[in-house]
């Protein structure tokens, strides 16, 4: 004991003024705090967030700001340019474009987020089971995935829309039937690599059941890639809805969606290009912002991006 404190031996006692040299001045932050700090530093992602919040606010409160309904026609204002009465003008039936844009935002955002959540659920459950169980279950599920994936999803969606009628519910069903594939593949890959790690074995040894290991241990660790995949599902669904309504199987008149507004503005596109501009601008901005947002969240959740 005495020798070890003597100078010249293995260790030297530290000088008093150096005692605090290993003190960490920055308080250590949690994962979420760090991720959100990273997110806020990303200008494009914050821009995307602001735009999405703007459209969400428009969808929620927009219709209360003006005294019009989406199908109220005013013959005095047919094809009117923007004015104090109609902020963005009126369409060929004299319907207020601003209100219709707000209802369109409702439909687009609802379909985008609702279908993403449904696909998240189905994809996680099926992909998780497939990856965790392996063997025959995995082979059968993955063949089903291959078969659904081989056909462009737009075909399914169009056929389902025609069979079930043109409304929000059948768009959702149509988007979700092929929509979970990507999520399921992602989750399956993650689970397969995670289940070989020690903590999964530890949970098994401690007597945790399959369901508990899969959802409480493995899935939680795959949350980053899952969220990234989720952020790509939203713009995809919004795009699909706009495409369908534009082709004529989506939301039907007089209900307004961005795609159907494009469709009805198409007839007089050379005379009234502004009527086309508003919905196309809304769709593009939303999809843009969601992509930025998705990239930003993906970067923020990746702890290697310090």
């Amino acid at each position, binding site marked *: 004991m005495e020798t070890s404190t003597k100078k010249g031996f293995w260790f030297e006692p530290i000088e008093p003024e150096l005692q605090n040299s290993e003190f960490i001045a920055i308080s250590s932050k949690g994962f979420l705090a760090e991720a959100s700090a990273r997110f806020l530093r990303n200008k494009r992602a914050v821009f995307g967030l602001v735009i999405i919040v703007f459209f969400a606010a428009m969808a929620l409160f927009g219709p209360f700001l003006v005294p019009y309904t989406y199908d109220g026609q005013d013959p005095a204002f047919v094809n009117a340019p923007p004015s104090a009465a109609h902020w963005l003008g009126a369409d060929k039936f004299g319907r207020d474009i601003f209100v219709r844009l707000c209802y369109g935002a409702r439909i687009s955002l609802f379909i985008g987020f609702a279908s993403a959540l449904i696909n998240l659920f189905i994809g996680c459950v099926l992909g998780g089971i497939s990856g965790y169980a392996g063997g025959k279950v995995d082979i059968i599920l993955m063949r089903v995935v291959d078969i659904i994936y*081989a056909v462009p999803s737009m075909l399914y969606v169009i056929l389902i829309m025609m*069979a079930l009628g043109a409304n929000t519910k059948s768009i959702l069903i149509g988007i979700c039937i092929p929509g979970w594939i990507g999520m399921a593949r992602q989750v399956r890959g993650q689970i397969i690599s995670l289940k070989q790690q020690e903590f999964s074995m530890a949970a098994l040894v401690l007597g945790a059941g399959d369901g508990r290991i899969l959802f409480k241990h493995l899935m939680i660790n795959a949350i980053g890639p899952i969220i990234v995949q989720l952020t790509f599902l939203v713009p995809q669904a919004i795009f699909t809805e706009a495409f369908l309504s534009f082709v004529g199987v989506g939301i039907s008149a007089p209900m307004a969606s961005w795609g159907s507004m494009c469709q009805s503005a198409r007839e007089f596109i050379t005379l009234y290009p502004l009527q086309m501009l508003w919905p*196309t601008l809304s769709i593009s901005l939303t999809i843009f912002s969601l992509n930025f947002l998705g990239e930003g969240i993906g970067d923020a959740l990746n702890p290697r991006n310090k």
Partner: protein
Amino acid sequence: MLKTIIKRILIGVATMFVLITVTFFLVRLMPGSPFEAENVSTQMIASLEKEYGLDQPLFNQYVLYLEKVLHGDLGISYKKNISVVALIARGMPATMQIGLLAFLMAAVVGIGLGIWQASTKSGFIRGLLVSYATLGVSLPGFVTALLLIVVFGAWLQALPVVGLTSPKHYILPVIAQAFGPIATISRLVKSTYSEAMQMDYVTMARAKGLSKWQISLKHILKNAILPVITYFGPAIAFLLTGSFVVESLFSIPGIGKEFVSAISNRDYTLVLGLSIFIGGVIIIANLLVDILCAIVDPRIKFND
């Protein structure tokens, strides 16, 4: 490798079978009779349904339909009273021309822009190309097509926007179709190309005194091209579904326009036949791309 190719083909066949079954029953689920019209009596409908075999039990109809499809008969468009195969033969040339041109343009311009973006030293050009890639990936196809029509067709009146009668008529539809895939391909090429640029064999080639072009095309691109080839399958699917919008916007008499008008006319059998055809083309295209990948890159042994 032969074993895996056979496996892929079997999956393709199974997919085709599922596609036919699902579309058949979905179409039969659709409300109303295909012959319903304002001046058609119920007796007429009944006799027409009998003529086309629609009064038989659903399962018999299904077996009959499968048999017909296997013989290359996709049924008859009840609304137009012409066989679906004849309609496909009529629309195919226009769709193929636009599709192939757009495909070539997407591949050439996309790869070019990707290489440019990876090798330029100018931050301005890089920024410009990155914004284009983001724009191209985010803009829905019909928005691009509409913008092109408004700007070049309506405002500048520089290019024709209706039909396919002269070479000039091809310009806008092909650009509209290729706009998105160009962005995707340039993104892919940019990332794989700049990765391959770091490799030792590139330094080696430079040290040997090879020309810039030789290095770029023979040494870097050859190793960076695989993800682009993998994307060819989805690109073909994208171009086919994209043709729905582009062809109806530019009034091009192709399969896409036929499909959209079949949807709005509720011409169920035509939708059924065209869905099976389009699905089949895409399944075959994906299969060929898979095999092509294995040929191009000997490292792929198909072991999944």
